[in-house]
C-alpha cells in the first residue's frame, strides 16, 4: 500500500547535522506589529513537529516564513542546510530571484487551511499540474504517480471530480496528494483540519499519520491535541510571537511547565 510518496532523500538526513529545518532568531513584522519576536526552532529529518498556540500567536506566520511566502525581517531559516530566500555572500545577504525562490519551494510541500485546490481542474489534474509544469516530468509518469497518490489518500474513485464536487475532507486529501506529487523533503501543514466539519477531521488526520509513519518530515500547525500526542515527535507551544515551551508532546501535554501553556491546554483539552 505505501510503496510511494516518501522520496529517497527524506529517509536519509541530507544535511550533516540531520537537521531538516533550522530557524534562528526569526523576526517578522507587519508594519508596526511584530508578529514573530525571535523564534528558534530545530526539526530533525523524519520528525513530526507540532506547533500549538492560541490564534494570533504567530504559528501560521512562522510556517509561511519557512517556504518564504512571508519575508522575514531578521534571523535565518535553513531547510536541509540551505538558507531560505537569501544567499550569503561576502558577509552580506542577497535576496534570491523569484526563480530561485520557486526552486527552493519545490522541495517543500504545503497544505493550507482552506485547501486552495485549483477549482477549474479535476482532482487528478490538480495533482499532475506541478510535476508536469514545474518539474517538466512526462505526463504519463506524473499521471501514474498521481493516480497512486490519490489511491493512497483514499480517493481512487474521485480522480475525475472537480473540487466543487468533493467534501472538505476529500478536498484536503487531494491537497495533500498534490503537495506530495512534488516529492518534497519537508511538508508544512497550516491548520489542515480547522476548516473541516468535525466528522471529516479523522480522514485527513489518518492520511497525515500514515505519512508520518513513512518517515516524512512534517511541521504541523494544529489544534488537534490528540494528533500531537499520538504522532508528534516534538511539540512547540507559541504565544505572542515567542516559543513559550517545547519538548516531547506527551510530556508537555501531561505536565506543562509554563502557566500560559497550562491555561491554553486547560481550555483545549
Amino acid at each position, binding site marked *: 500500500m505505501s510503496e510511494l510518496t516518501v522520496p529517497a532523500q527524506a529517509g536519509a538526513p541530507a544535511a550533516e547535522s540531520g537537521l531538516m529545518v533550522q530557524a534562528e532568531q526569526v523576526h517578522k513584522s507587519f508594519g508596526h506589529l511584530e508578529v514573530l519576536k525571535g523564534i528558534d526552532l530545530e526539526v530533525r529529518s523524519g520528525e513530526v513537529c507540532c506547533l500549538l498556540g492560541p490564534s494570533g500567536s504567530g504559528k501560521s506566520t512562522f510556517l509561511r516564513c519557512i517556504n518564504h511566502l512571508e519575508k522575514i525581517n531578521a534571523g535565518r531559516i535553513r531547510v536541509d542546510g540551505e538558507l531560505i530566500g537569501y544567499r550569503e555572500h561576502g558577509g552580506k545577504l542577497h535576496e534570491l530571484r523569484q526563480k530561485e525562490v520557486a526552486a527552493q*519551494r519545490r522541495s517543500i510541500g504545503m497544505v493550507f487551511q482552506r485547501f*486552495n485546490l*485549483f477549482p477549474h481542474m479535476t482532482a487528478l489534474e490538480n495533482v499532475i499540474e506541478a510535476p508536469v509544469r514545474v518539474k517538466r516530468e512526462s505526463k504519463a509518469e506524473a499521471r501514474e504517480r498521481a493516480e497512486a497518490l490519490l489511491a493512497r489518500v483514499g480517493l481512487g474513485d474521485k480522480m475525475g471530480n472537480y473540487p*466543487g*464536487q468533493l467534501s472538505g475532507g476529500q478536498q484536503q486529501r487531494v491537497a495533500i496528494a498534490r503537495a506530495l506529487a512534488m516529492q518534497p523533503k519537508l511538508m508544512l501543514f497550516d491548520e489542515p483540519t480547522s476548516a473541516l466539519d468535525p466528522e471529516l477531521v479523522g480522514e485527513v488526520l489518518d492520511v497525515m499519520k500514515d505519512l508520518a509513519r513513512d518517515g516524512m518530515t512534517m511541521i504541523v500547525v494544529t489544534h488537534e491535541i490528540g494528533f500531537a500526542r499520538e504522532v508528534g515527535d516534538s511539540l512547540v507551544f507559541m504565544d505572542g510571537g515567542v516559543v513559550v515551551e517545547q519538548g516531547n508532546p506527551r510530556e508537555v501535554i501531561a505536565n506543562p511547565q509554563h502557566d500560559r501553556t497550562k491555561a491554553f491546554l486547560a481550555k483545549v483539552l
Partner: protein
Amino acid sequence: MASEEVTTVRARPEPIRAVPVRHPGRWITVAVLAVLAAMFVHVLVTNKAFNWSFMVDKMFRPPIIEGLLRGTVLMTVVAMVIGVALGVLVAIMRLSDNPILRAVGWLYTWFFRAVPRLVLLAVFGNIGILWSRIEFGVPFDTQLGQLFGIDNLQLRLFGFSSRDILTGFMAGLLGLALSEAAYMAEIVRAGIQSVDGGQTEAAQALGMSRGQLLRRVVLPQAMRVIIPPTGNETIAMLKDTSLLLYVPVSVELFFQLDAVGKRTFQIFPMYVAACLWYLFLTSILLVGQYFLERHFGKGYGPAGRARLRLRTIAAEQGGGGQGTAGV
C-alpha cells in the same frame, strides 16, 4: 427511521386552493401602454417623412452592405482582438512587481480612458499633419550625426507615407483598438484581482513561476469575471464604429447611410435605417452573449453550485451504498 414512519402514517393534507391577490394596477398599466403603442404605430404609418419605400430601397445597396461588413463587423472583430490582447498585457503590467511597468500601465489607461473616443479618432485621422512619413530606424539619427559632424545622417530601415497607411481604416482601427485596450485592461485587472489569493499562494508553494501561475491558475479563473463585461464591450464597440465617421472611414455603415441621406436630402429615413441595422447587429451579439455567460457561469454562483451539488448527490445515490462518504 422514526421520521419516515411518521410521514407515511399521517395523511397528506389537501392542496391549497386560495383566492389569488388581484392586481388592478397591472390592467391600468396595460391600458396606458396600449394607447401609447397605438400612437407610435400611427406616427410610423402616417408620417410621410419616414419615406419607408425609399429607405428599404436604399438600405440594402452594395456600398452600404460593404460598409457594414468591413467598416462595422470586421472593424469590431479586429479592434476587439487587438484590444483584448493589449488589454491583458497592460493589466499584467499594472499588477506587476516592477514599479516602472506599473507606472507605464497606469499612464496608458489614464490617457486612453480620459480622452473621448470621438476626439481620439479625430486625432488619429489627422495624424498625417504631424508626420508626412512614418519611418523606423535609429532614433535621433540626425541629431547624433550632427554630434559627430555628419550632415543629415539618416539611419532608417523602412518607412511609409502617412497618407497611404494612417488614414481611413488603419487610423480608425488604431484609435478604437488602443482605446479599447485601456478599458479591457481595467476589466482584466478586476478579473485577476477577483481570484482568491489562496490560489496564488498554493501555486507559489508548488514552485510555479509567475508566468505559469498567471497562465495556468489565475487567468482561467479570472475568465468567469472577464467574459461578461467583454461581451458588453464588444457590443459597445460595434456601436462605436459609427464614430469612424469623424476619422473619416468611408467604407463604414453609418458613413454610407449618412452620405446617401445628405446626397438625396432624405436624412431621416437613412438615420432610421441606421437604427434598424444597429438594432439587428447588436441583437445577434446579445444572443451570443447570453450563451457565453451561461457557459462560463457553470459551477459558480449560488445557482451553478447548487446544480453541481445536486448532480453529485444524485450520482452518489445512484452509485448506491457508499453511505459513509456522504456529504
